[in-house]
């Protein structure tokens, strides 16, 4: 897929929860082969936006296209193109990591857990917990299995919500390397929400700043290239300045 081709396109999206306007006028694209950061203060609507991208909350207006498929018309086909790491807290505590991956594989129409996922489990340091009940695992270990769920089946779009939380340095390094490799070799588009702005300049190609349910600012590859070779704290200052500026 061409690097400039949007794999996920959101147009004029608005989501209301009851009488509360949570998102309004959201327009953005995820280009193939790039990692896009979704950044914003608590309560800015990031989680709702992700739920909308997954088809778990119905927008009142707008369109979401995943790999050219209209999410509202064919949610199943659109969801097959998406890999999502659920909140580790909602993973079933009475199943083991391997069993969770088996169920995920079944949902993606695979007969078994692919070898590449098991190999990645090894690199993330989760292999020795594969047969332990998730309820007995640490937050970091459950986070690793949530990540493996997202990567299983090699979907072309990855939606990763705060996945760096709880990861040890080696696992975080391995995950970043895996995401970079998938972007480079398979043209995967990644949407990554994070509050850890220090990792952004080295990992992201694009970033979208969400505040009070609207997109406040966007940064592109040129900005990140400059920050990568300059002051590592510049991105953090840019985010704070954009948030403090009048909308």
């Amino acid at each position, binding site marked *: 897929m061409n690097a400039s081709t949007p794999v996920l396109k959101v147009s004029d999206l608005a989501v209301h929860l009851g009488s509360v306007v949570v998102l309004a006028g959201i327009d953005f694209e995820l280009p193939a082969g790039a990692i896009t950061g979704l950044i914003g203060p608590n309560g800015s609507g990031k989680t709702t936006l992700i739920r909308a991208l997954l088809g*778990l909350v119905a927008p009142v207006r707008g369109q979401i296209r995943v790999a050219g498929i209209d999410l509202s018309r064919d949610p199943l086909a659109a969801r097959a193109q998406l890999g999502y790491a*659920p909140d580790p807290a909602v993973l079933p505590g009475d199943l083991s990591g391997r069993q969770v991956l088996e169920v995920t594989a079944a949902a993606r129409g695979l007969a078994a857990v692919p070898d590449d996922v098991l190999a990645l489990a090894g690199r993330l340091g989760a292999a020795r917990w594969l047969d332990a009940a998730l309820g007995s695992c640490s937050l970091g270990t459950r986070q690793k299995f949530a990540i493996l769920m997202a990567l299983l089946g090699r979907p072309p779009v990855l939606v990763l919500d705060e996945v760096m939380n709880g990861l040890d340095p080696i696992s975080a390094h391995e995950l970043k390397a895996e995401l970079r490799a998938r972007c480079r070799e398979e043209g995967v588009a990644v949407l990554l929400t994070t509050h850890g702005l220090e990792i952004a300049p080295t990992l992201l190609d694009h970033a979208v700043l969400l505040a009070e349910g609207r997109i406040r600012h966007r940064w592109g590859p040129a900005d990140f290239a400059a920050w990568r070779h300059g002051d590592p704290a510049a991105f953090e200052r840019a985010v704070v300045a954009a948030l403090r500026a009048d909308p």
Partner: protein
Amino acid sequence: MSLDPDSLAARLSFANRVALWRVRGAEGPFLILVAASVLVLVLLSLEAPWMALVSAQAAWNQPPAAALAGAALAFALWWHGRAALQQILAARRSDWLAALPIATARREAQARRVAWRGLLLRVVLLMLALAWLLGRSDPSAPLGLGLLAGCAATALLGLWPGFGHPALPTRDPVSVPIPSLRERRAKATGLALLGVAIAPVALRVPRLAWPLGTGLLLMPVGARPLAVLGFLVLLAALLLSSDLIAALRRRLAGDRGWLAALPLTPHRLLGGYAPTLWRAGLVRALLAAIGAHLVGAPALWVLAIVVVLALLLLHGALLAFAARARPARFPLWTSLHLVIVLGALQVLPPLAPLLWLALLGWSWRRAMATGR
């Protein structure tokens, strides 16, 4: 192996639970034995009121009333099954499989199968109990046949594709506090806020409709209206007490994680829940007293009922608190204590109160242990 993800997850979960029970050894068979004993005790205690209900001159045993009772039972069972289905469907809107490419219709069909199996299990157990009671009385009693027909009708209704439709409207979570909870929180301070988080009783009252309806059915014909009312109030007090302990257990399980690292002694922690428990206990004790009085119990009996209910609540709360680190211990300890006290009542009644007090002391000591 089935490739339906929900069925596969349920199957794996069941296999894991069976394996866990095997590891625990005698605990599983013991719990089953205790549950069976309790069931037999309940059935034996139902025999006398049942005989009164199906006597030839009893109004409930006349064909029109029996048909009405059967229809009411069918409706209650159906309503319960439908509510269970809606609960499963609501949970699936945001569970760990929600974002995977699984057709909504497939997940709904699987949820319907789960709810149907639950409904069928309840119906079969109820039919077995009714068959046993009918076997001990007149097998052709219209009331028994009406209730059996109601059960069968519900089981068939569960097979209907429209079962559970239309779906109840579910709302996505918005962080707006429950008004009544907010008001109560405003009045409480410090650790007492822990107890306030136990859901207010008003939210649980609607769930009493079904057991109270069953209780009404068990009332002998010709009973004074005030006695009927008293019986229902007494039953409500018991049900609300059991519900309070269940709510406390849920709260303790929820609070354990975030309170574990705080420098709180068990005494102070229990003190946080105590004000709410006292108030809730007082309401239930008052209800029990009113109920017992309306039934026509002498003052001494009213007092005895209130004391027994208060002690039951205290015992339940202490056991829930003692098992806060390992919630699976609660049913084990409760069953064990029940068997000891009821066994003593059967064999040597004067010993029962002493044993009960000893068990209360034991529960208090366990509750005040560190809980690690």
